[in-house]
């Protein structure tokens, strides 16, 4: 059994999943994966929707994505354990060690900070890689094309200046 799917097969399968999610046989809505975060924050911090209006906006899509993400955790775990055999505990990505530094503390602090701003950014724009790139651009939405263009530029500029050019 193959341990890894080629990019083109992954792209075709992802397109089919997207079409299924959009269709009335599936969920009749786009695929998204960042609204669940403020929704979970509301649940975990026991925030009152009466007081925080944003929780009312994200109530339905947040719950939908919450259930979807639980499925993704299960699907990811099962595939990692039984198919790709890639399940292992680690705190340090190999490429971080090669192109940034070998400090675990540095990796964890940067992870926390980047995780924080990743969600702030996604919520400001109203979507992420799934909601804007995959779902939005498939609908030829201008909002998603603007987001996609800005993200690509910001991603590559950060990649250039944040990491070292040569592996140590």
């Amino acid at each position, binding site marked *: 059994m193959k341990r890894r799917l080629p990019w083109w097969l992954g792209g075709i399968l992802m397109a089919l999943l997207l079409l299924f999610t959009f269709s009335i046989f599936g969920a009749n809505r786009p695929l998204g994966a960042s609204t669940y975060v403020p929704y979970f924050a509301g649940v975990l911090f026991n925030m009152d929707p009466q007081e925080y209006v944003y929780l009312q906006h994200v109530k339905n899509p947040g719950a939908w994505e919450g259930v979807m993400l639980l499925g993704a955790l299960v699907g990811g775990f099962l595939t990692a354990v039984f198919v790709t055999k890639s399940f292992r505990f680690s705190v340090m990505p190999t490429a971080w060690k090669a192109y940034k530094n070998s400090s675990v503390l540095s990796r964890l602090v940067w992870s926390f900070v980047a995780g924080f701003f990743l969600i702030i950014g996604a919520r400001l724009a109203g979507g992420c890689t799934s909601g804007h790139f995959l779902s939005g651009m498939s609908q030829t939405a201008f909002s998603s094309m603007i987001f996609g263009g800005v993200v690509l530029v*910001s991603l590559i500029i950060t990649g250039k200046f944040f990491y070292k050019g040569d592996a140590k």
Partner: protein
Amino acid sequence: MSLTERIMDMFNIVANEGHGSIAVVFLIGILFGGIIQYTRVDKFEKIAGFAMLKDTTVPKMLFLAIGIASIALFFEVKLGYASYHIKPMIVSGLVVGGILFGASMAILGKCPGTGPISIAEGRIDVLVGAIGGIFGGYIFTKYYDSFFKPLMGESYGKETLLNTLGDHASWFVFLFGIALIIIAIKIPHIELLDEADLSKLTEEERTEIEANKKFEIIK
């Protein structure tokens, strides 16, 4: 409401919302997680590697998926099996959000969809990133009215190629889709691989990668 009640509430909302049963939504999640894990595009080396322009697997897969889906979705909607759900053009929100999102994605090496899948395969650093994300969600929710909503600016509508280009719009959708598929194929496939995962591949898969020659292995 208690935590348990709020979690039960999540399932109740999905059960009553009419966007697929709990089982269908959960299945969509399983497939989403499975496809991303199986293609290994949730790896730091794939996403941060793309930011460093050392790995092009993510843009190739993403552009191909969008190219195919944009053309197929057009027909799906035409036949009445789906409808469009467009996000508004909140220009400053999109630009400021996009800058923060792109920079964070390069540093964390994940996005909000791939992150949980990495956690499911045992990546503790991403779990720490997710805790940061939950705090981000908390702060955003808390200061939405006073700070973030004004920052997002006003919406310039929900425009798309389809509703702005008039009679011939459908041709532009095909052009858009085909252009993305061609771009996906034409981007040279370079890879940044770590030995820990490379060692899990079958002999045949390793030979395939080595035949490609455009790759870099790190330990």
